[in-house]
């Protein structure tokens, strides 16, 4: 799996790693049971501090995206995140707000914004 990070954007590096792994799993580029590089290997490949990768992996594990076997590597978990629906919605709300702000700014209608979201979901082949 290829992950790229850019320190200049102001987005924390661990979040960049997290979102790229999530994207790869959501898009099916990484399948359940597939292995991820070790923290040290990923850190060396990206030239970032190992703690940064460790933090991203911890968050991904908490979210149920990956599974770490102590001493046995890191795998794509593939199971549904064990979160309450309310918690899932709470986590997405800031993204929805940003989309709403940008959409309004560009004078798009609510229908047009919703259509974009549907198209993106379609692209990931996830049934709404």
């Amino acid at each position, binding site marked *: 799996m290829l992950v790229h990070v850019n320190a200049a954007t102001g987005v924390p590096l661990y979040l960049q790693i997290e979102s790229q792994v999530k994207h790869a799993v959501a898009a099916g580029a990484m399948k359940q049971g597939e292995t991820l590089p070790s923290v*040290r290997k990923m850190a*060396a490949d990206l030239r970032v501090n190992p703690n940064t990768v460790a*933090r991203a992996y911890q968050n991904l594990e908490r979210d149920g995206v990956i599974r770490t076997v102590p001493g046995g590597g890191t795998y794509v978990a593939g199971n549904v995140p064990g979160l309450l629906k309310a918690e899932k919605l709470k986590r997405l709300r800031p993204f929805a707000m940003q989309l709403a702000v940008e959409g309004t700014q560009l004078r798009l209608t609510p229908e047009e914004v919703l259509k974009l979201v549907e198209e993106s979901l379609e692209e990931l082949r996830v049934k709404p």
Partner: protein
Amino acid sequence: MTEYAITTSQLAKHYSNTRAVDGLDLRVPRGSIYGFLGRNGAGKTTTIRMLMGLAHPTSGSATVLGLRWPEDRCAILDRVGFVGEKKQLFESMKGNALVRFNKPYFPRWSDELANRYARRLEVPMDVPFKKLSQGNRTKLCLLLALAQGAELLILDEPTSGLDPVVMDELLRVLVEDYAGEGRTIFLSSHNLAEVEKIADWVGIIDRGKLLLEAPLEEIRADFRRVTASGNALPGERTEQVVSVAASGSVREYFVRNNAERFAAELRNQGATILEVSPLNLEQVFLRLVKKEEPCTAGNTGATHAVASSSI
């Protein structure tokens, strides 16, 4: 084992009429990659020279791996790899000869590492030092420090003069072979993007004093730019507000902590908060060391252009 690789306590070095280092208290955790940042002449090299026993403190003290100069001199030199500001070795010696020369001094020396780094950093080993380019001299100095098997690396501007390919390779080596092994790296640098990627601790020094020492994640989480518009907005710098810039009725505040509460207070005073955005290391560094930027209640309404032209 102490939990800090380096500590300094009120460390100071005064030259005739300059205070190069002026009461510095550093805490460098073991296992960290610590970026030691500051402008030219801020006191970085003087601090490093005192840590390596190359300069005597005027006052204060320092420990390196829990050891002290001058009584633990041999133990420090055994266990600390050092690349100084002036990348200088015996002029007539070739890389291979320098490896043979250095080896007996260091109990944990590894020929295997020396060979590996010669290959990975592309160091010409059969050319006399004086005939090497500046970049290759730096690489050879780094190779000798890396092959030493040190617990702590102290590097003064290690990437200056390196081409992007070698710099990238060096960062890989530092992350994989040092941070990955729980060893400590203390490096000074002007390349903030590079430090932002590999460091987990940052110390910023200016005019011999420490402005900030914190985990990088904390800096990223705490520092915010708050953009607000409204009448009679506060224009003073405070403990919390690092700098203020004004443009018409809009003000930009650089806040070092509790940005949400700061924004809420402004909102209570009738201001509109336009944005609260995170900052990268370079922006934080610039705001902290460019102190003289004027913006007080006295020049309310000053445009941004006026404020920045008088820096």
